[in-house]
């Protein structure tokens, strides 16, 4: 199997992640619920996970690192906290449904900054024109479809200047691009644990600014202020009712330590190298369109493509049967496809992680070439 769907989840994890999950399953109970060794062990794992994330992502207080089920969960917390009162929200044209569906569920006017793919200056200019009077802004760090690295620092600077709270969707950037919540001055950042941070599925993080006052999405027991029938007004308890995913936190902690040890820059360079080599190998497939940035720094290890007269879903399905795992279609991001002009066709997406090897590229490219030929000959026949 060649796994090239790392933008969906990083299937291949550092071995320490599985070991940590297994050990937590055997030895850790529930944090904040008892004074015995297994509860203390759980509490320590969860706190270490928060502390490691706080250190990596520029949060000076681990209490403001909230453990969530996913980045989607984290985005719901952030967007519903800021958007419940209505108003106008400014967002990039590269947002995922985790953002746009949540915004659509709120009494908000969505003001989309439409700018062409890999043209960051135009995106920044669009934000500059729209921020005045906005309730808040949302920007993804990287497009999940095209690997496009958005000009987040510039957009964050504009938000600071305009006094507009910013929500960062770091789903595709966390683990390969630097992210410092407090340096950006962002109000919230949402991160999945299971993609570039190499933790297990079912983990995510919400990073909160000191001034953030998030509303509880769920209510229930927190192991604190139990006499009160309202949720605690402090973090992380306010947003973390119920039993924690301790095994997930243990695995995520191991993943975070892997990223810290390896270095975001090193991971990014590896993934970009694989993406560029793959693009070279595929460049002579007849009718192929590769979505590559002229400036390599503007693209992570995600490569989207279309092939003329070949349905991307059929191509993805056939590749899957040959053991090459990719993602086809709209990638839960119709807005991004609309921005790129690929809403009708969708794309086939190849995405790399720290665990992909250069030796996987040629077989995967050859498989894609054969699939295209087979689909074309089938169509002709």
């Amino acid at each position, binding site marked *: 199997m060649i796994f090239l769907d790392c933008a969906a989840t990083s299937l291949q994890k550092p071995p320490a992640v599985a070991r940590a999950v297994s050990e937590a399953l055997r030895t850790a109970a529930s944090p904040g619920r008892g004074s015995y060794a297994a509860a203390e062990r759980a509490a320590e794992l969860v706190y270490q996970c928060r502390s490691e994330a706080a250190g990596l992502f520029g949060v000076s207080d681990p209490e403001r690192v909230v453990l969530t089920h996913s980045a989607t969960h984290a985005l719901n917390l952030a967007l519903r906290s800021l958007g419940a009162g209505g108003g106008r929200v400014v967002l990039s044209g590269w947002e995922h449904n985790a953002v746009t569906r949540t915004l659509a569920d709120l009494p908000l006017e969505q003001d989309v900054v439409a700018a062409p793919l890999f043209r960051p200056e135009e995106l920044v200019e669009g934000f500059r024109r729209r921020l005045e009077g906005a309730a808040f802004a949302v920007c993804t760090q990287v497009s999940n479809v095209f690997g496009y690295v958005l000009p987040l620092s510039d957009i964050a600077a504009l938000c600071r200047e305009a006094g507009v709270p910013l929500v960062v969707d770091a789903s595709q950037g966390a683990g390969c691009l630097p992210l410092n919540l407090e340096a950006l001055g962002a109000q919230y950042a949402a991160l999945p644990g299971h993609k570039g941070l190499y933790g297990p599925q079912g983990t995510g993080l919400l990073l909160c600014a000191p001034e953030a006052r998030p509303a509880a999405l769920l209510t229930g027991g927190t*192991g604190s202020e139990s*006499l009160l029938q309202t949720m*605690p007004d402090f973090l992380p308890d306010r947003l973390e009712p119920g039993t924690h995913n301790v095994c997930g936190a243990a695995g995520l902690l191991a993943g975070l330590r892997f990223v810290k040890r390896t270095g975001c820059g090193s991971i990014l360079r590896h993934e970009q190298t694989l993406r560029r080599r793959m693009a070279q190998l595929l460049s002579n497939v007849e009718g192929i369109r590769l979505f590559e940035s002229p400036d390599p720094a503007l693209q992570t290890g995600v490569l989207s493509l279309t092939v003329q007269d070949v349905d991307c879903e059929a191509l993805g399905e056939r590749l899957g049967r040959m053991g090459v795992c990719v993602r086809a279609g709209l990638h839960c991001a119709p807005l991004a496809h609309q921005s790129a002009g690929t809403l009708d066709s969708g794309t086939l997406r190849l995405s790399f992680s720290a665990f992909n090897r250069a030796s996987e590229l040629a077989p995967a490219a050859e498989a894609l070439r054969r699939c295209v030929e087979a689909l074309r000959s089938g169509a002709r026949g």
Partner: protein
Amino acid sequence: MFYLIVCRGLTQAQRAAAVLERSGVNQRILRTPSQVSERGCSYSVKIAHKSLNTALSALRRAGLSPTQIFLAQSDGSYREAVL
């Protein structure tokens, strides 16, 4: 004789304990005794009587403000410390 530094939640207690450890203060996290827990469950950091000033300075530098501080009495009761 020891002090209990009452924290609003477990994570704050863990953070306080980490700060104190870095400052060389021996400490232990424990559940706040029910006789001093006004809102139900909470966590406290237990420190030796002699460590109070060092502990408070370290917590202040870290921007941590405990909810309350109690001094354990010889009869097992607690008296709130007025700082």
